């Protein structure tokens, strides 16, 4: 039988050890890595590309759902948590199963069996679809997560100056740095707090706290001058939106 590669992600050593123990009965499953926080998990998953990930939800730095958001490769995920309330969300992101702590060996085997079946049938959900469903839209985003290789950046929305569309990506400008993220500008716009972030142009979302002044530079066209001197073009509808907010 083909061997399966797995990564265990949980911030508690004891919680990881029980999965390790249950896996002893399944020699075909090889543990490639164990991670104790979200950053490590993103790094290990992108570098090792495992078949199955056992994923805790509540962890330092990034929670389990945020980890998934940053992964672009196809993945079979089994959530492992003491919290029942994440179950619905877990299946929304196409988790194969949801183990509630504490769980029995039988229940664990069942979850693993499901994962294997899915892997054999090669039924993958495109990762882009997962990213779209991870974020619930009832509350505005507090931080934006960006991955560069296996490095993760957490950018609190308050530290964003502006966001620029670049083909399939958005460039998030913060503290003089630019972070690329694979996302559509309109999708990101819909997640941000509309009282703070305004789409001033087809290609720009502006954090209004950074705006110093507006200058008229051609008929029907204005320029936003930011506090750090950056100049951004403002479209007519963008100007209407800004006027409404200020």
């Amino acid at each position, binding site marked *: 039988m083909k061997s399966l590669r797995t990564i265990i992600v949980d911030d508690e050593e*004891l*919680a990881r050890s029980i999965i390790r123990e249950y896996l002893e009965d399944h020699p075909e499953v090889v543990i490639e890595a164990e991670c104790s926080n979200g950053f490590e998990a993103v790094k290990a998953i992108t570098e090792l590309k495992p078949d199955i990930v056992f994923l805790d939800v509540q962890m330092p*730095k990034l929670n389990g759902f945020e980890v998934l958001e940053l992964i672009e490769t196809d993945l079979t995920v089994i959530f492992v948590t003491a919290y029942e309330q994440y179950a619905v969300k877990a299946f929304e992101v196409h988790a194969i199963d949801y183990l509630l702590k504490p769980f029995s060996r039988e229940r664990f085997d069942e979850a693993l069996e499901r994962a294997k079946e899915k892997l054999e049938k090669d039924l993958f959900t495109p990762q882009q679809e997962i990213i779209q469903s991870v974020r619930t839209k009832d509350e505005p985003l507090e931080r934006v997560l960006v991955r560069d290789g296996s490095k993760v950046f957490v950018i609190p929305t308050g530290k964003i100056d502006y966001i620029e569309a670049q083909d399939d990506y958005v460039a998030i400008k913060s503290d003089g740095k630019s972070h690329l993220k694979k996302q559509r500008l309109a999708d990101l716009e819909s997640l941000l707090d509309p009282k703070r972030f305004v789409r001033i142009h087809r290609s720009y979302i502006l954090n209004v706290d950074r705006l110093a002044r507006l200058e008229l530079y051609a008929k029907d066209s204005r320029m936003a001058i930011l506090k750090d001197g950056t100049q951004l073009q403002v479209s007519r509808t963008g100007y209407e939106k800004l006027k409404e907010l200020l």
Partner: protein
Amino acid sequence: MHPILAYQERISVYLLCWLIFGVMLAAVLALPHDFSWTEALSLAVPLTLVYSGICLSSWYVCRVYPLQKSSLAQVIVVQTMAATLTILLWILIASGWVVILERALVLTTFRSRVLTKAPLLIGVGNILYGLTVAVHYLIATFEASKESEQRELQSRIFAQEAELKALRAQINPHFLFNSLNSISALATQDPAAVRAMTLRLADFLRKSLRLGAQEMIRLEEEISMSLNFLEIEQIRYGSRLQIMQNVEEVCKDCLTPPLILQPLIENAVHHGIAHILHGGTITIEASWRGSVLHVRIENPVDPDRPHNRKGGLGLENVSKRLRAIYKDDAQLQTEESNGIFRVNLWLPAQTSRDFHSRSSATTTVKVSENLPA
């Protein structure tokens, strides 16, 4: 709302009383043979009934000048003025009625005979007005005391509800599930550790049930329970969770409401330590200054952590409980600086002696309930 008009049975009783007054007035007029019974009754009864309606309006004067909040002189002056107006109105109506009666029943010298009784009628009018005012004031006082009793009861129910809610929130089910998961993991690795963990868990649960049922407990007991909780969490978090305590000896006998620190300690673990890669130290300090017990809990936090409302809920519960128990004498304050989250709690410093001398005066019933029969 009018205290008489609002209730049908009060209206009936009121009208009945006035009907009797009417008949009595008729008797006063008829007995000296100045008036025939027909004359007396047809004059007195309708007029008193009309007057009963007018007098009801004195309620509005009573409401504007309640006995508790206005001086006696004020009440007398205002009510005298109101009485004069009421009687003038009544006399106006009465004279009209006399004319109507005289014409309708073809009576002789009726008007002049009524005129001789005018002082009597005015006197009776005054007395009846005064009576109505007295009744209104009586009802108002009665209802005010009933209302304040109800308000008192309501606030006691609120306080108890806050207390119950806080207690129910004490034992966090996720804490239990995670601890059980640790036990399940240890079962095959380290049976001695399983036993130690089970004992600690049992200890913690027993303490929280026993102490939670009491009105007040000693700070030492509260802190020992919190340490118990932290020791269990230490098995889960390993070296990530360190504990430091600095409790002045004198504070240990101070009384606190049971489980008041517990939600704060839980927050320190679940919203502090749990979000930090390498963990940190939770510090518990208690000191006694003057008449105030000061408890401080500190824990490191990740400044970039996602904010959720659950920690705020725990704090809110604690502060609601404090308000229910101490009114404005206790204070809860939080601050965050340089990656440290700090909760300060100031309580009136009471020992069991202060508490019993205070509570024995106010809640004797409670004390006697606990005595063996």
